[in-house]
């Protein structure tokens, strides 16, 4: 089985580092984007198996990234898991409506995160 690749889109370098360490320990390969503007290009270039997406991003927020991805056939099928500190009451329905698979609120337990990624990659 080839190693699955996860694209982590988060503007907080601490978060990118931490998620990277956690996911590599879970035998995933990791690539990163720090803003909405480069996120789409990174997704097209890297063709990740799963995307972890923060919502508060410079250069186009997470919702915009979800919208753009849904419009690009090659990217539309990549499962996106939203990982954000935002209030689910205000954002979860919108994110899921734009095609996100899951909505996880930070801080996220490692087990929850890994289970969500595993579920998203199942069958792919």
């Amino acid at each position, binding site marked *: 089985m080839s190693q699955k690749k996860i694209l982590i889109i988060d503007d907080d370098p601490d978060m990118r580092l931490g998620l990277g360490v956690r996911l590599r320990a879970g035998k995933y390969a990791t690539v990163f984007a720090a803003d909405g503007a480069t996120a789409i290009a990174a997704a097209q270039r890297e063709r990740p198996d799963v995307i972890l997406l923060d919502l508060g991003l410079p250069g186009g927020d997470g919702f915009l990234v979800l919208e753009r991805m849904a419009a690009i056939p090659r990217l539309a099928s990549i499962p996106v898991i939203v990982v954000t500190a935002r209030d689910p009451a*205000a954002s979860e329905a919108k994110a899921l409506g734009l095609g996100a698979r899951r909505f996880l609120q930070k801080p996220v337990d490692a087990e929850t995160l890994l289970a969500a990624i595993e579920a998203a990659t199942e069958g792919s």
Partner: protein
Amino acid sequence: VLYLGGRTEIAPRPAAVIGFAGVATDEIEGFFDHPELLEHVMKQSVGIALPSAAIDQDLSREILGRAGVLSMVAVPIAAQGETMGVLVMGARMVSFDVEDWLAFARTASLQIGQALALAWTLRQNHFLLDSVGEGIWGIDSGGRITFVNRAGAEMLESEATMLIGKGFHSLVHAPCAEPDCELAGRFGDDRKVGEAAFHLGNGAALSVEYTATPAHEDAQRGTVLIVRDTTERQRARKLAELEGLRRQELQVKDEVLSHVSHELRTPLAAIHQFVTILLDGLAGPIEGEQRQYLGIISRNVNHLRVMIGDLLEATRFEAGGVTLKREPVAIADLLAQACETLAILARDKAIRLNVSVDADVPAVHADPSRIAQVLTNLIENAVKFTPEGGAVFVSAVRGDATDGSLCISVADTGVGILPEELPKVFDNHYQGTNTVNLTRKGFGIGLHVCKDLVERHGGRLWVESRAGEGCTFSFTLPAAGSEPR
């Protein structure tokens, strides 16, 4: 004898016995209660005299015989265009000129009809005036009440008969000494519309809108005053204003807290991330004391996380933005899930979690996620307040036999709560400051929310405790089918 009735029927009993020369009135009772005769006069709306060629001779004799008279006339009484009754007169002689008598009876019936019509009109007007919600007053030029309808009398918490003849102003403005007061009775010659406040002698106050219309009849000059009690409306408007302000405030609070919680969660997420990375050995082996201290950081991070969540939750409860999604709930499953969630917390403190569910617990119709929240909260508190090596007992039993409810209890073996402190534990933001030896504070928001949730389900949440012997939080849920719709 006067018979009165409705449109098609005449009451069989006489409405009035007008008089009968030389005969006791009770002797006449029933004498003319002859349905055929009454019906004939009623339906044909014609007067008849007996004996008469117009009526069958046998019948005529029978009617006269029963009444004990030798001759009689019966004429219809018309009021407001309808036959409303029959006037019957009898005589113990036959020497009358029957036609004259009939003419006299017709005149009498006409007058009775007019009197009846007037009485009905008056009654109808009274009924109409008493049916309206506005107070209607007739006030004479001296400011005295000449008429008041029911609503008007009720506004003054009195009865119409008690008010007639009294001065209007002194009744509605009990302490008023203002000579130019707009309600002082001089409403002038123009129609006037205004707003005022009534101050009654008993201290009650009303907000009113009124219309004063001058009324002149012959030499009489007066005013018709129509008054609408707007107290309720004013109160409702004020309440709505306050409610609007409260909603606005809660909305702002929600936005602020939502923002604050986001801002707090971001650094917290980083701390959480790296503490768990270290604890899981992803950055190299850790041992002994290091593990213990990192565990402490981790627990406190989790505690912070829960508190941040509670902040928003509590505001949203206050705003009433919680709707229950009820479905059949297996309480044993919910208990198992709650205990599983808290197993780590309990294990860290070497606390035994004992769960027992009676076989005959009733089914409940509840919102599973909300009840899970209550269970988690209560069990988490119990674990928190039980010293290391203690035990927490969770049980679900059928409630008292009468209502067949479900009763869930969570008992800890902690320090307990002092009796005077017990009623306060469900207060918003209660901190449990007086609980002896408290190593961790902060079960306030949770309990407040729990109680609200249980009550929204139609249940009850309470606490029992003896200081030094732990406390027991119990709540009931109505059995499925018995909860209020």
